């Protein structure tokens, strides 16, 4: 990865693009999703490439309004890449179909990759740490959550935006075809799963209140089960639900099932 020196104009454009790329979900519609943010992010760049009100400018704006959806962080990367491609297009080196195709081709893989890095891994870790602290009444947990999960996204956005712009299309072939993305996703998955497992042990419980009178004294069923494997019922409940999700159950149905189970259980004295 060779570092490219940016001109003063490029630097100011990239800075504006970075700030605007933070508006990913503004006026999000199911038809165009993040297109408005993409247009706004690209606009400072387009203004330096095309003349105002020229047909080329209108075409470029129209292109920027096509359906767009990915994770909030790689939006900056794709915008940086599009900046480079639009520049090449103005010089006649890249045609519009390539711009459209690369944008469309990158949405899926980047969304998957950054969901697994930020959403399923970093967020879970940050929340795990924050929950531990906040439970003790320490507001520091919330602050750490913002720093670990929020601020890091902004830093990543800046790095990816400049990387996308300076590396251009050559980069895509290297990274996406090398197989490293799958490895990265899998390793983030290991970390994410460990955290989910840890938090399941901390928080998920099936609080049954059954006791059996053996004559010699009361036996608390929950204690018996926990002595076999701590929190066994919670783990069983979790994997029953994982199976149901794989069978196509919606989260709302699971919530409904638990409510009915809990209310019926409370009525018959199970809880």
């Amino acid at each position, binding site marked *: 990865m060779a570092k490219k020196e940016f001109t003063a104009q490029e630097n100011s454009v990239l800075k504006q693009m970075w700030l605007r790329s933070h508006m990913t979900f503004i*006026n999000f519609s199911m038809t165009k999703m993040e297109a408005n943010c993409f247009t706004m992010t690209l*606009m400072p760049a387009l203004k330096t490439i095309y003349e105002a009100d020229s047909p080329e400018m209108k075409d470029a704006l129209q292109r920027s309004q096509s359906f767009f959806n990915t994770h909030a962080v790689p939006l900056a990367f794709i915008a940086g890449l599009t900046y480079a491609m639009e520049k090449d297009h103005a010089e006649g080196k890249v045609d519009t179909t390539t711009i459209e195709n690369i944008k469309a081709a990158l949405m899926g893989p980047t969304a998957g990759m950054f969901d697994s890095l930020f959403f399923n891994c970093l967020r879970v870790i940050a929340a795990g740490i*924050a*929950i531990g602290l906040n439970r003790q009444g320490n507001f520091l947990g919330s602050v750490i959550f913002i720093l670990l999960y929020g601020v890091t996204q902004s830093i990543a956005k800046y790095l990816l935006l400049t990387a996308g712009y300076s590396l251009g299309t050559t980069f895509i072939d290297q990274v996406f075809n090398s197989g490293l993305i799958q490895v990265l996703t899998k390793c983030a998955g290991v970390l994410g799963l460990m955290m989910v497992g840890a938090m399941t042990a901390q928080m998920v419980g*099936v609080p049954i209140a059954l006791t059996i009178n053996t004559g010699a004294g009361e036996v608390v069923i929950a204690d018996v089960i926990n002595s076999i494997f701590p929190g066994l019922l919670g783990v069983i409940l979790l994997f029953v639900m*994982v199976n149901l999700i794989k069978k196509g159950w919606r989260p709302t149905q699971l919530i409904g099932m638990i409510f009915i189970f809990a209310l019926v259980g409370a009525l018959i004295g199970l809880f």
Partner: protein
Amino acid sequence: MSTVGLAFKVALVYYLVTLCDNGFLSWQCLTRPIVIAPLTGLVLGDFHTGIVMGAELEAVFMGISAIGGSQAADATLASCIAVAYTILNNTGIEDGIALSLPIGTVMNGFGQFWQPLVYSPMAAVWEKEAVNSPNTFFIKNVCFYAIANLLNSVVLFVAIAFGVVGLNAFLDKLPPFIMRGLGAASSMMIGVGFAILTSMVWDNEIGIWFFVGYVLVAYAHLNTVAIALIGAAIAITLFFSHKRVIDAKNELLAAGVKAGAETGEEDFF
């Protein structure tokens, strides 16, 4: 202060936080229960309850959040209402937590009703705006969002000002097993979020790491920071050992291409 005044404060916090995050940061971070619940507690005069509830609510809603625009429950609105319910009625935290998911589901249903009505027809308008008046596109987007975002805040205001005290009075009249059931449900409901997360990340090859994390808590009683560090060490080691294999494979492929041999892409995993 009256309930109406407090409800206004909470609605204001909700408005500013959602405007800030959804509009200008896109972190999906400040709108999480762990941040908004303490803030709600702060304006209602009970910061401590807000902080503690933030932790519990974050656990409940951890897996239940928007991916690609669809979600099962609105964690932000639910957190505001659950904290307001607990503080204004002076009930235990458990009651507020138990009510948070049903409230979040109802609130989300409301959002899913109005958001397509407001935002979807605008998509065509925005396209024309972008092409024809690019200079005002930015400011128009900001203004439109600032106004559209008011809707949820107004609903939140009404729900807290006129709903939570009445809700408590209503629940008090119900037989005791109902609140006991809701309490039992709340610790099982945390499992729903974790089940969604698990099913997203799960892969038979790495599934065993779930139990490693579990055992580190259940038997070794480690805290989450320690487990995050252990997990990071394992993930980094795995990454580099896989990377070496891939690098070797790519080198072989490159050498094969140079020699003019046709080599098919192998699926490595």
